[in-house]
């Protein structure tokens, strides 16, 4: 368990009321580790004069890439045997349906679910009619609704990583990277009223 006392340990700011040495204390240390000093609340704000669609599009692509990389480092531990269901806590079990080609939800393992989900998101991002990449091509009228669905689904991958694989993330010393990415994500979806989600997003502790 040498990773518990790694070189980054001094950057953790544990809450004082938790007794040191308890498992919860240790998990909380990792759950609070973040990267660097930049102001993420400022970073998510729509720059003055910017088009909301353009801003949401570029951020959505960034979050997709980050989740793809994060899941990529735990994928060999997320097998149908380890994760027979796509869950993010006892209250959340997901069955896959994309609402278009797959209407009837499919019961599947977490890795299958995440594969469906990421493939579906990639297809949306590559669709020039939804995410135009050429200068001057307008976004579709319902772009925010589309982006919201993508972000809502991407959230489930973060949730699954926190819920089922956080120990692996810690073993790889990636907790600050995951936490920063997730914090950035939650600030981003909270900052724009048009993106605000119908469910409550809380800190990573929700899933630990």
């Amino acid at each position, binding site marked *: *368990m040498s*990773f518990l006392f790694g070189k980054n340990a001094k950057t953790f700011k544990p809450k004082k009321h938790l007794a040191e040495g308890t498992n919860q204390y240790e998990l909380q240390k990792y759950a609070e580790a973040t*990267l*660097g000093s*930049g*102001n993420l609340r*400022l*970073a998510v704000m729509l*720059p*003055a*004069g*910017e*088009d909301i669609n*353009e*801003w949401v*599009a*570029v951020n959505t*692509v*960034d979050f997709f890439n*980050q989740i793809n*990389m*994060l899941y*990529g*480092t735990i994928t*060999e531990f997320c097998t149908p045997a380890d994760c027979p269901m796509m869950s993010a806590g006892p209250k959340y079990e997901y069955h896959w349906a994309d609402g278009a080609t797959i209407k009837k939800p499919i019961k599947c393992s977490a890795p299958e679910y995440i594969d469906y989900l990421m493939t579906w998101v990639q297809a949306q991002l590559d669709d020039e009619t939804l*995410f*135009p*990449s*050429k*200068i001057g091509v307008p976004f579709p009228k319902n772009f925010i609704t589309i982006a919201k669905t993508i972000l809502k689904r991407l959230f489930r991958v973060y949730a699954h990583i926190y819920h089922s694989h956080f*120990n692996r993330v810690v*073993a*790889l*010393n*990636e907790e600050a*990277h995951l936490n*920063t*990415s997730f914090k*950035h994500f939650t600030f981003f979806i909270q900052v724009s009223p048009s993106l605000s989600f119908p469910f409550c997003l809380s800190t990573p502790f929700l899933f630990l």
Partner: protein
Amino acid sequence: ADPVPTSLVEKSKKLKFYFERFHQKLHAARADRERRRTDLESEMAKLSFPEATKTALRSKLRVTESEYLRLKRAPIDPSQFVQL
């Protein structure tokens, strides 16, 4: 815990590098954008441009910034690609 395989350590190293650089660039980009805006304002003030010209130049900068965001999403060329 089981020992982490070397291939995974490498993958994780690349992830960390990417994320750390991403966050540096994220904050730098906002500061740069703000600087371009204030630079334009101070230049225009120095040269005492008429209001109509100022409005046109501000709008031109806004469009350029927006196009820059779009180009960030454009299909990437191999030199920008972070291989995992």
